[in-house]
């Protein structure tokens, strides 16, 4: 296999993988040949996973909102802000927190409940 062949294999695969991820994460059209029902299941699995991970990072916000409102707001946020390669879970969580500040989804912006304890900062 020459370098040129390898480059074109990689380029073709890149197009196909990007199309699949756009469909799963960013509301893109389902790629041809895939089972649409299963794509929908996979989309839900990935969204649930992301919501759980972000929820773990912003436990104060999740508690303040309550599970139902947290879920509704997170899903609205996720539909606008797909998970990008330059955003880890912590940055995603902080981006969500800022987004909630702009989209409170109620009459009053949610305010975290005071807690008597603090988590120890996680060492890098």
């Amino acid at each position, binding site marked *: 296999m020459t370098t040129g062949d390898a480059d074109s294999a*990689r380029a073709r695969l890149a197009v196909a993988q990007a199309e699949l*991820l756009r469909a799963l994460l960013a509301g893109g059209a389902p790629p041809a040949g895939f089972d649409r029902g299963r794509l929908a299941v996979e989309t839900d699995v990935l969204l649930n996973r992301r919501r759980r991970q972000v929820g773990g990072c912003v436990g104060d916000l999740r508690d303040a909102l309550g599970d139902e409102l947290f879920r509704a707001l997170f899903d609205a946020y996720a539909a606008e802000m797909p998970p990008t390669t330059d955003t880890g879970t912590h940055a995603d969580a902080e981006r969500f927190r800022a987004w909630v500040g702009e989209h409170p989804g109620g009459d009053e912006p949610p305010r975290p409940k005071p807690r008597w304890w603090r988590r120890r900062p996680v060492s890098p």
Partner: protein
Amino acid sequence: MAAAGAVADQLVSGVGIGWRAEIDLLVERLPGVDFVEVVAESVPRGPLPESLTILRERGLPVLPHAVSLSLGGADPLDTDRVRRLAELAAAVDAPLVSDHVCFVRAGGLDSGHLLPVPRTRDALDVLVANVGQAQRILGVPLALENIAALIEWPNAELTEGEFLGELVERTDCRLLVDVANLWANARNAGRDPADLLDELPLTALAYVHVAGGVEHDGVYHDTHAHPVPAGVFELLAELCRRTVPPAVLLERDDRFPSAEALGGELDTIRAIVAGHRAPA
């Protein structure tokens, strides 16, 4: 490269469990654990978690298991991630490391999870190139795991057995066979999971994963958060009939049960493997 048909070196042996920070004390106290595996990305940089240090001091092998290298991805390999894995492998003196036959990122998006690659020549060539590049950085043997996939790419040019067989042959990587993933895929596709065992390049087998899951709306989800179904244990026994695996590891990532429940699943694994081992 090992001669065709020759069984590769044994890198780890016995029965192990996935070490997770939430169950660190439980894992330390479980009797008869021969090794642990740790999700590489969950280990903070800096000093090792105390529990892992304790296990290492007892002489237990610790195997870093990565989930984010995206070795099947068309994006250029993220060599920083590979280097971090190599550093962790060195820190725990690991006999091998592992990741998955999958892709995670593409087109600027990060799925945060393991997604299948198409079984095409293009995808195989890319995977082989990425694995080779990773192996040159790692400095320890790399085992690759078959994933559980809810979706299937159209227009496959190779069977799963052919795809993995050629991957092993071209990269000399080892195989981490997850029987729960095989069982989940077969169940969701209406196939017999035992058929795939006959196709796999089992001479490259490094170890085996066992895990639980749950069914929702007719689709089985490999959650690692539920008990191991009987069918997965049966598939482990089916594998043992073909070759007794060097080592088997139980994965549990969430909804952690009691030590007794986890110990019971480990006992079931031990009984299955012992039942197929030739008498000494």
